[in-house]
């Protein structure tokens, strides 16, 4: 396809539809431009950059929310405000209402992508609110900070809908580059700069590996469109069975592994996690919270897109996918075990949370492993493969939704406590519960978040973990190793208890150090954290769990059409 025809197609065929779908991203881009301009014009003293950012993100969220509602209701909502929203955002059946690729096949639009975009923008909104409350960044650096954080989110939005290897690379780089700067944002702190440098070097290395993998894949298969990769490989192999002896297969597997290295770096999976503890310790807690949730959610969406590219009915594809699935499962268990054990000796809260996110990436990766194994069950299996695969993605989505709130609560408490005690060390948390009423609220919310991270009912973390374990357990009927992995995953829950409890013990049971003044925080902060932790309880013990699980199922189903 020559460039001319490409441009012609772009203008004639799906340009208007593409733009209609792309509106939230465009709004976010406009916000970024506005933030930069306001700096040049000097308007950032009159309208604080955080409010510009909040406004832009809100608009963007409203746009994507409208899209999701449109898809959910099929464009015919009986409630007047929703209908007005549809009309205001000019959603149409041919545009947003039609799922499929856009921008000449570079990106794909479906329920799954829309839901993830919505989640990411909601999360961005919550993080920006947190930064307003904690006062990082100061007014001087405001525009830079919000430009970076919005830019990184823009890359994440792209990542949820990638349909081309090129886009995959662009999306990963786009979310990574601003985050390198964000990690080093606390200028003048040595740890911060060191962390940023480590992050950059590591990121650049893994990007290089990934790019090489991409070139191998597209060179071997003659296409970069992810959804075509599987079909082409099946065509290439004809009736050959899957064996690592054949040169095509080994090249393909090598290419896939190299791409997975790039994704695993974003997910901070063992053994590509080395940057995480340092970067999290160096970065401010707000940035840590942002990186730990948002980039993970986006990378998981991207990973699903990538591995689903090799979905197909040819036996060779099924063996390949099972092979990748089991490999990912083993990696998942190694990640959670390592993360949980390494967290034992940590005394810095952000470092501890970094190891905790490594472990949680492991739990979530187990869902993708289960997805690949169940989806490619041999035809004689009793499983209803597609339905079970939907449940795997549903479980992952549920987990991410809960994870968004529980991890952000933890990081928010760390940031807010830092503002009072000027320390992120565990020793500064001794007897924190004996502080003022707002600090008490923060402590209780921290406990809720931590127990949810352990996976204790009645908090959302338990339900989410159970969904993933159930899916993985079912995958055990395809390959027994999944049962072993679930068993180890369960054991890891008990491992992880100790270090979370160590923090809670320090907060609730130790007496404060001698001469340490009782601290308190502004009441507004308490309300913020309370609202943030409320969904953890709601998603663990309320009828709304049904709604979220149905929405997640609705989104997941669109992947398997």
């Amino acid at each position, binding site marked *: 396809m020559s460039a001319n025809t490409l441009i012609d197609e772009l203008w004639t065929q799906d340009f208007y539809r593409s733009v209609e779908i792309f509106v939230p991203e465009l709004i976010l881009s406009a916000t970024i431009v506005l933030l930069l301009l306001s700096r040049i014009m000097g308007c950032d003293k009159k309208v604080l950059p955080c409010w510009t950012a909040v406004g832009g993100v809100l608009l963007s969220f409203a746009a994507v929310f409208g899209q999701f509602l449109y898809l959910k209701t099929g464009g015919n909502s009986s409630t007047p405000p929703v209908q007005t929203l549809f009309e205001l955002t000019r959603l149409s059946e041919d545009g947003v209402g039609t799922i499929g690729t856009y921008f000449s096949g570079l990106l794909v639009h479906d329920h799954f992508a829309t839901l993830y975009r919505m989640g990411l923008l909601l999360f961005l909104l919550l993080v920006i609110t947190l930064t307003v409350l904690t006062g990082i960044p100061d007014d001087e650096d405001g525009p830079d900070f919000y430009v970076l954080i919005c830019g990184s989110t823009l890359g994440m939005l792209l990542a949820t809908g990638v349909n081309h290897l090129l886009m995959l690379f662009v999306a990963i780089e786009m979310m990574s580059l601003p985050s390198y700067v964000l990690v080093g944002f606390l200028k003048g702190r040595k740890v911060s700069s060191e962390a940023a440098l480590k992050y950059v070097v590591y990121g650049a290395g893994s990007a290089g590996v990934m790019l090489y993998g991409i070139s191998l894949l597209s060179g071997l298969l003659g296409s970069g469109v992810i959804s075509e990769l599987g079909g082409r490989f099946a065509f290439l192999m004809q009736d050959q069975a899957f064996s690592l002896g054949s040169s095509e297969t080994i090249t393909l597997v090598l290419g896939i592994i190299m791409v997975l290295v790039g994704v695993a770096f974003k997910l901070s999976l063992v053994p590509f996690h080395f940057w995480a503890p340092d970067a999290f310790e160096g970065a401010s807690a707000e940035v840590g919270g942002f990186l730990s949730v948002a980039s993970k959610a986006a990378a998981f969406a991207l990973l699903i897109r990538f591995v689903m590219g090799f979905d197909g009915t040819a036996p060779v594809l099924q063996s390949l996918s099972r092979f990748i699935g089991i490999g990912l499962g083993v990696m998942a268990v190694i990640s959670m075990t390592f993360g949980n054990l390494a967290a034992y000796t940590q005394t810095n809260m952000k470092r501890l949370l970094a190891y905790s996110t490594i472990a949680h990436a492991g739990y979530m990766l187990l869902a993708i492993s289960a997805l690949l194994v169940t989806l490619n069950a041999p035809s004689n299996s009793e499983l209803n493969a597609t339905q079970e695969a939907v449940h795997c993605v549903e479980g992952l989505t549920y987990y991410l939704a809960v994870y968004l709130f529980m991890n952000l609560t933890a990081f928010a408490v760390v940031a807010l406590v830092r503002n009072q005690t000027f320390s992120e060390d565990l020793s500064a948390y001794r007897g924190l519960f004996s502080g003022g009423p707002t600090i008490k609220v923060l402590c209780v919310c921290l406990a809720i978040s931590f127990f949810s991270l352990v996976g204790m009912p009645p908090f959302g973390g338990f339900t989410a973990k159970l969904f993933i374990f159930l899916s993985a357990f*079912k995958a055990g009927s395809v390959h027994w190793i999944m049962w072993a992995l679930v068993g180890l995953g369960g054991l890891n829950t008990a491992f992880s*208890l100790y270090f979370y409890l160590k923090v809670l013990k320090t907060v609730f049971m130790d007496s404060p150090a001698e001469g340490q003044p009782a601290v308190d925080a502004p009441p507004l902060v308490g309300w913020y954290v309370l609202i943030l932790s409320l969904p953890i309880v709601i998603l663990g013990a309320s009828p709304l769990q049904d709604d979220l699980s149905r929405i997640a199922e609705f989104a997941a189903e669109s992947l398997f059409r």
Partner: protein
Amino acid sequence: MSDAALLSLTIFTPTIFAVLLMAFDKKAEEGMRVFALIGTVCTFLLSLVMWGRFNSAEAGYQMMVSAPWITNWNIDYRLGVDGISLPLVLLTGLVSTLAAVASWSIKEKIRGYLILFLMLETGMMGVFLSLDFFLFYVFWEVMLLPMYFLIGVWGGPRREYAALKFFLYTLVGSVLMLIAMLMFYFDSSKLAGGKGVFSLIQLTEYARTGGFSQTNQLIAFILLFIGFAIKLPSFPFHTWLPDAHVEAPTPISMILAGVLLKMGGYGIIRIAMPLCPWATQYAAWYLVALGVFSILYGAFAAMAQTDFKRMVAYSSVSHMGYVLIGLAVWKIDETGATVRPDHWLMGMQGGMYQMLAHGISSAGMFFMVGVIYDRVHHRDLNKFGGLMQRMPWYSGVAVGIFFAGLGLPGLCGFIGEAFVVLSMWNFNPTLAILAASGVILTAGYILWTIQRVYFGPEYKGPHGEDLVDMNGRESSVAVSLLALAIVFGIMPSIMLDVMNPTTEALTQSLSDGYDNSSKAAAPQVSLK
């Protein structure tokens, strides 16, 4: 009030009161205590209403409530009560109320204490009333969180160690239960066609008709049994118990011994046995032997203690051994038919009665230890003596309660132990003789303790000047427990009548389940 409202309110009334406690002023400690007590009393009254509506002549679940919760995974909000759970619900309501009265001895951070205490009661009620495996698990863990803090914040000197040990042990047990839950969900998805099942009623029915393979039953039973044996506690999973008991404040010790230990037994009888009938029979001999060993081990260990509370804690290990034996005395002949099912039925009733009796007597014993600890601030058995002269009223009631723990005929402890030992004779006379000798050891350590603490010429230990007799609040708790111990001792039919039809149905369904599992497995064996 509809059944749904009655059962849900029984579970959630304490939570509602806990939330309302937030509205109290910080200084209104007395008001908060009274308010929390009202909450527990209301819950107890609701459980009495439940008893009033319960039809004792009928086997199976009554007042069932069912509402879809997470439909994608077939998880329901499903409650119900039967002859096995009703006595334990009543026990929970009662012990919680008495523990709330005993909570006046807690002096600091009172609001946090009461909120956690009430949440704990919600968890306990929920465990006994839920009929959905998922819901059961949720409540099971809900109980764990407040307990951790109640021991860890308001406990004795080594409270952090004890709380962590308790939490880790129980969580490991829970994880094993979780894996068993996954197994049943997965197995039942084949039987139900499509989605798996969490409903315990449905799962029991599948198990009765031989739906689960023998291997899976055995694996699941081992996982579930370890999970519940930790709570029961049975040797060798009991080591958390003495630490937790010694460090926990008195009211929490009462709840721990009075209700939480019963959850182990309840889990076995409600989940492990009905869902794995074949494995239960397969493991029966080991379970009984383990029970006998627990009785003897617990009794010897109790005899060796010098800490009053630790002694009572080990006596719990010993007493819960009877529960395990009673449930497991299931003997079959070569054809697989149950030998003398009436004996097994008696054992099962004895085991369940033992749970109730122990709930009353051990809560009483811990309370009595707490009363004396509040005065002299030590628990060293060798430094006591002569309390009968200084505190005659307290000592009299205490001796009565200790006799109930000993199993003196006419008091509650006797019925359960007698039933269990009698039913064991049919199972295995040697083990029966060993278990019966446990009764002598029990008498030994309890009488020796009474002698060391209450008799003797005079009290020589520290803080002798503080020895004043029980006040009205303490007397009310002690006397209620003693009165119940006597009532349950002379009129066991109050509770046995409630249990009878359900236990009979249970033994029948277990026998059927064993037959069907054997039949289902038989053709496969012949093919090989």
